């Protein structure tokens, strides 16, 4: 069972994001990077498939400069078999189309039954690369996946996805792209033996030239700005619960006018 897992890094969720003085991006100094949480679900699911079928390979595909090696290594420490890194600096601020084009070009050289992407990356929140990748590879996509059951013959999978107010269950032929949603699984921690083994696992570095592509931007960011800081309003302390409740309800009706 061969899974290809696409992975990227994002700033840690504790990061205080600040826009740079020119308004062209965020201040990146001092940012701690983590694997995009949704990509962790992807890695975990791929590992579970390999365990279920008792054979196969989990390949980690990471786009980005040097620091992403660490993220790929972490996924290898969780149990993945090998990594492929496209170490192109411009991929960091790239639009989803450029990202998907790169993923597709890299995927063509990899043997896979299934591809996992995160539903979205918590830095750009585009939620697009996985679906675009599927279209470029001309294979089906299922987004917001919360459960995967691959058939014994590995030709199809029964998959559950999120829809507003419920779930949709569908059967998808393999190969396909699935984008992982929270609730798919609980990612494992890398064990100490896993971390040691990971040091010897291969990470193949490729350039855009190696993949035979050059990136054509389809979107352009014009300016970055900080949202207006939300201020505290009224705080009611030391009041009896019924008094406080009455005051707030009246304010919601007469002042805020939301009810």
């Amino acid at each position, binding site marked *: 069972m061969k899974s290809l897992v696409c992975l990227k890094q994002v700033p840690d969720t504790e990061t205080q994001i600040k826009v740079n003085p020119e308004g062209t991006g965020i201040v990146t100094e001092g940012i701690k990077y983590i694997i995009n949480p949704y990509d962790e679900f992807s890695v975990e699911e791929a590992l579970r498939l390999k365990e279920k079928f008792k054979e196969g390979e989990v390949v980690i595909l990471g786009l980005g400069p040097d620091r992403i090696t660490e993220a790929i290594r972490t996924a290898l420490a969780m149990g993945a078999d090998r990594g492929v890194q496209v170490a192109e600096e411009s991929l960091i601020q790239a639009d989803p189309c450029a990202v998907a084009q790169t993923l597709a070009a890299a995927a063509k050289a990899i043997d896979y039954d299934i591809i996992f992407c995160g539903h979205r990356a918590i830095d750009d929140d585009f939620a697009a690369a996985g*679906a675009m990748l599927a279209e*470029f590879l001309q294979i089906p996509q299922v987004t917001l996946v919360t459960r995967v059951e691959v058939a014994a013959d590995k030709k199809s999978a029964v998959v559950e996805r999120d829809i507003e107010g419920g779930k949709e269950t569908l059967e998808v032929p393999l190969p396909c792209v699935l984008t992982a949603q929270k609730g798919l699984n609980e990612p494992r921690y890398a064990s100490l033996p896993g971390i040691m083994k990971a040091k010897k696992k291969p990470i193949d570095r490729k350039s855009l030239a190696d993949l035979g592509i050059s990136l054509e931007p389809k979107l352009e960011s014009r300016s970055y700005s900080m949202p207006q800081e939300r201020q*505290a309003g009224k705080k009611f302390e030391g009041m009896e619960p019924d008094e406080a*409740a009455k005051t707030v309800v009246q304010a919601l009706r007469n002042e805020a006018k*939301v009810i």
Partner: protein
Amino acid sequence: MSKVMIYGEIKAGKLKKTALELASEGRKLADSLGGDVTAVLIGPQAETFAPDLARCGVDSVCVVEAPELESYNSEYFAQALAHVIGEKKPEIVLISHTMQGKDLAPRTAAKLGVANISDCISFQLDGSKLVARRPMYAGKCYTDWVALGSPQMATARPNVLEVVENPKEGKVEKVSFSVDNGRPTYVTKDLNLDTSGKVDLTEAEIIVSGGRGMGGPDYALIEETVKIFGSKAAVGASRAAVDAGWRPHSDQVGQTGKTVTPNLYIACGISGSIQHLAGMGSSKVIVAINKDTEAPIFTKADYGIVGDLFKVVPELNKELKALLAE
């Protein structure tokens, strides 16, 4: 001539409110550009919804019907939408950033060789260039984006754009289209929709959320609040509550959960971490109830009550019931 095209999502036999949001915004943009708004509806008897769209400023409604388009399918719907876009050549295409939109927009964009600016909260025009503002880093900053290439495609965050009545003709045009079923795609086996009438968090106008302060999986108190508010309200949860197994993942509000945009957000027993604020910070009005006066949520709440939620919420429910019964 079609300047702006909007996609109207039909769900469980109803036109989603997001379609009217897009129609209204499309009308605004088209008026500035000096052109028409065309809506695209895909599915059986879709023309039933033309009058609703016409009321919000749509000049023509393209309706696409085919056996494979009876219910949503990524590949077939993307083919159909790409086909209509190819026929009508709009300059701008707007889709809603719903769960379907997130699935449909990027695939359609890829088919057309463009990219989609997703989850936009506002639009401006710079000449004929669409400038779309979108939050990034879970709303910690905003970025303005433009699309290079044509059409310029964007998805709009639900519940943010205003619905404005501006009646136009809404002339129905049936587009004939045959799906290419040589392309592999999935088959829907089961649609398990919550028929209790619960609204999804991303579409709720009022959200009452419980966090660690709830002390356990018993959310009856705030479920009561939601019941009093009615069908447009929903129960939310913080990550702490979801990780503790008290509430399902689909209830989680926050940076690694859902981003919500209700008119009113009531946070009960939620401290207000950066990650939680990232998910609900663009609520119109925030009410916080927490025992701890130092809880960060009070720095962002419009109305804060320092107190025991188990004493305050029952009183809140009483007051709300009385007020809303009037």
